[in-house]
């Protein structure tokens, strides 16, 4: 490294930076501003998200590298820590859309009244800025730090409900799991660094390609990194924290965890496996395959038994993780196709899962118990919410008219079929059927009459916007699925 000040491409780092600055602005305004209104925190958050969104729109289609170093050895290539490419753009879209919807759901009056709003929005933006940075990070250290920036505020958010012991317990559980996974991952990274002498994924890949002396150490490092990320994406058997945390946390936070924080974990996996550890796919490929199969099967089977809406969504999101993982098992064989499949699934899953959570957040105000039976007659009481939830569930199940969900499944199948992992295809086929059973059961409840006629609930405008926006997006993508896959190139 030749010392000196590095040139910084400010536009390229605007997306995470805007959210981070927004977070600080919310905190400062709360401390010093006198005329601080109930909607101000959400308003500031939305503004920050929009700024980041504009930056992403400007950057779309570009390829930029920032924070590059020339390694000391002569003739070595320039490697960079931060990159704007199709992967980062796609994940940025997921994170921004997800954070926007969660912000709407956490508006004053929409979220549980025991949650202190400014702090909540501060933490939300902090965590989201970590997810943005993670999507663009291309070395193991940046990756780990970004991942922690995602997680630390997240478990504070999970426990922010004042005077709720269940919420505090969930936060503690989440905290412990998160810390352990970070430690395991750090150990893995140090092994990889020890074996290859590099932290930039490009160099790691080159070193692994060339062959390293301490191969067992390198393999152990790769596997430990994988385990650490497995915790983040809640892959079975590292999933035990999910349902309690989702149920204990306020619904918007559960939505955040199931979409944005999970997307962060997945992009970590995609970057690490697709860019860095690819030469060792013989070692981790089958392992990821087994993880994917276990994750989707256990998630689905446990979801079958749930009677609580948030718990069902929690287990369903575990099952969906399995489908996002599956293509990654064959990254070594099919490369970009698998990355595209995984990212495409993630994008689609994010939109429809947010839609489902938006309706759940709306319902939880009137019926805090959140049992599936409470959704009886929703279509009659609140037709658009009923349609939105039913459509989201059909998309999650992957059946038309939820065409976009079908295409998510299609690309996942395609990657695995091309990768030649026949047994995983069979497991996926069986799981599509199991998933249907509970998604349809809930859909039926929504469509069935409730027996009692009751007044239409008063819908918070921000929540209404979240429900309407996600439904529009899901229906629009079902008609023009090309939009998703064009983003991914």
């Amino acid at each position, binding site marked *: 490294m030749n010392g000196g000040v590095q040139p910084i491409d400010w536009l390229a780092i605007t997306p995470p930076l805007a959210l981070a600055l927004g977070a600080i602005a919310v905190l400062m305004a709360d401390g010093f501003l006198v005329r601080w209104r109930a909607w101000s925190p959400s308003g500031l958050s939305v503004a920050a998200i929009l700024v980041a969104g504009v930056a992403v729109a400007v950057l779309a289609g570009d390829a930029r590298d920032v924070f590059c170093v020339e390694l000391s050895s002569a003739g070595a290539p320039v490697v960079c820590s931060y990159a704007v490419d199709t992967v980062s753009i796609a994940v940025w879209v997921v994170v921004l859309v997800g954070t926007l919807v969660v912000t709407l759901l956490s508006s004053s009056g929409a979220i549980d009244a025991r949650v202190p709003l400014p702090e909540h929005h501060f933490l939300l933006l902090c965590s989201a800025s970590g997810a943005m940075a993670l999507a663009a990070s291309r070395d193991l250290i940046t990756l780990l730090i970004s991942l922690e920036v995602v997680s630390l505020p997240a478990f504070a958010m999970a426990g922010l409900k004042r005077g709720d012991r269940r919420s505090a317990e969930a936060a503690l559980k989440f905290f412990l799991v998160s810390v352990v996974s970070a430690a395991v991952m750090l150990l893995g990274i140090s092994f990889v660094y020890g074996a290859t002498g590099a932290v930039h994924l490009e160099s790691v890949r080159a070193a692994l390609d060339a062959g390293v002396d301490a191969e067992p150490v390198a393999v152990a490092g790769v596997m430990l990194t994988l385990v650490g990320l497995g915790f983040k994406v809640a892959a079975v058997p590292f999933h035990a924290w999910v349902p309690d945390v989702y149920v204990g946390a306020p619904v918007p936070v559960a939505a955040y965890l199931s979409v944005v924080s999970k997307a962060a974990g997945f992009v970590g996996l995609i970057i690490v496996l697709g860019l860095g550890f690819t030469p060792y796919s013989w070692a981790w490929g089958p392992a990821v395959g087994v993880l994917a199969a276990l994750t989707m099967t256990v998630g689905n089977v446990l979801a079958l038994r749930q009677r609580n809406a948030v718990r069902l969504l929690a287990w369903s999101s575990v099952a969906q993780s399995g489908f996002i993982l599956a293509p990654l098992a064959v990254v070594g064989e099919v490369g970009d196709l698998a990355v*595209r499949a995984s990212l495409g699934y993630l994008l689609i899953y994010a939109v429809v899962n947010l839609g489902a959570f938006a309706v759940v957040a709306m319902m939880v105000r009137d019926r805090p118990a959140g049992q599936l039976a409470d959704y009886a007659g929703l279509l009659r009481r609140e037709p658009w919410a009923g349609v939105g939830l039913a459509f989201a569930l059909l998309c999650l199940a992957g059946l038309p008219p939820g065409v976009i969900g079908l295409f998510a499944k299609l690309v996942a199948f395609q990657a695995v079929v091309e990768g030649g992992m026949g047994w995983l295809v069979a497991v996926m086929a069986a799981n*599509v059927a199991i998933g249907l059973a509970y998604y349809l059961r809930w859909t039926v409840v929504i469509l069935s009459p409730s027996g009692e006629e009751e007044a239409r609930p008063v819908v918070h405008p921000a929540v209404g916007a979240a429900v309407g926006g996600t439904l529009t997006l899901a229906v629009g993508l079902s008609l023009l699925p090309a939009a998703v896959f064009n983003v991914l190139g």
Partner: protein
Amino acid sequence: MSWLLPLLIATPAAGALILAFWPRNRADRDAPMAGLVVSAVAFGLSVVVALASGTEAGFQLEQERVWIEPLDVSWHVGIDGISSPLVLLTTLLGALCMASLLRGGGPRCGGERALVAMLLLLETGVIGTFLALDLVLFFVFFELVLVPMWFVIAWWGDPHDEPGRRRAASVFLLLTVIGSAVMLAGFLLVYGYAGTFDVVELAERGGEGIPATAQVVAALAIGLGLAVKTPMWPLHIWLPDAHAKAPTVGSVLLAGVLLKMGTYGLVRVWLPVVPDGARDVAPYLAVFAVIGIVYGALACLAQTDLKRLVAYSSVGHMGFILLGISTLTPAGINGALFANIAHGVITGLLFFLAGALKDRYETAEMAMLGRGLYGRSPRLAGVLAVAAVASLGLPGLAGFWGEMLTLLAAFDPIAELPRATYLVCMAVAGVGAVLTAVYFVAVLRQVCQGEPAPSGASSTAAAPSVASVVSAEATRYELVVWAPLVVLTVLFGLAPGLLLGVIDPSVVAMFGGGA
């Protein structure tokens, strides 16, 4: 003219959408009429389409647009002699179902708007499946049928057995979904080697570029998905319950058109796209088909419920169709496609009749229906007799030609296939045909003939006694609804050339040279 096919697909879908926004206070009352209008328009359109497409070989009225470029998926639809009779059958049965809903034929639990919307959505899916010329598009339409059918069975099915109808609907859905997921894997495998989802292009290449093992795997995967739908023995287990528990309109559409999606897929996709794989799998298909014929016939002999009996008879009929396809000869495929249409018409009619009886007597148990239907309601019994003898394959009615052609084809399959196996299959299938005759004659004896007498000792208090049913006779309205099916049964029986003339050119163009 290329807008005709999209218009045909969009018509029922638009109808369903309009119904969804109909004013709530009158939606349920207006729904059957709206459904009838929409499905009649769809039928009219399909007649126009059929006339416009003519009898020439090759695809007519094609429309192709890129849909999802990164995935190589396009909106590609077209029609030929193989698909046009099926499209006509679909829209005809759809319109007749709506007509029967209009006057009391529907279930009595309400929710007509939703029922009609579901049926229209289902019709969209079926028409789309028959017109799609892109594997992914085919798959999307194939799947579109499932959710509406699930609702039709689970919500408006047998009012006396709620857990039963839910279970029947779910078994149907789960088995079909697993099958179609496996089928999708087969499609993707084909794409992996061939690099296109376009059915026309794949058929022209005839499997070129796909290695032999991959073809066999793809043929197994695609065949499995379609065999669940058809259904082929032993994958038929969802069928008897689904038919028996579905409301009349559900049974009619299920038997009349949904099953055809499986056999159509075999002819449209399976045979031309992976021909070498299909050739390896065909003898096994023939054996399973024949087992299905005999099994269906024997199972029918053991049934006491008229709807279940008709359902099991479908397993046998679909066996003949599969046997015809498995010979890989133009004659066999012609026979299979003919039998496809004949089965749709005849079994559709049988389910209308069984449903009418069940509505009157609250049961379809043959013992409870009592004897002597000829005496009590001669017109109803007369139509039942025509449908039953047509179904058992009496020469001169539509059921005969399909079975005869497939049996003939099994005598002379293409040279690469083991002829001895097919001869045995043919012989066994012949026995199955005789058994079919036995059980339908038995039905006629038990239900139609004899002295009108109060139902047997097994009658329960819940079911109205036979004597108390006042309006046992078919109404004029019902006869009008059934008439087109009766006419077609006779017409195709006396002049099979009418139908074969449409099917044959396309079949010969597609399978004549290479087979």
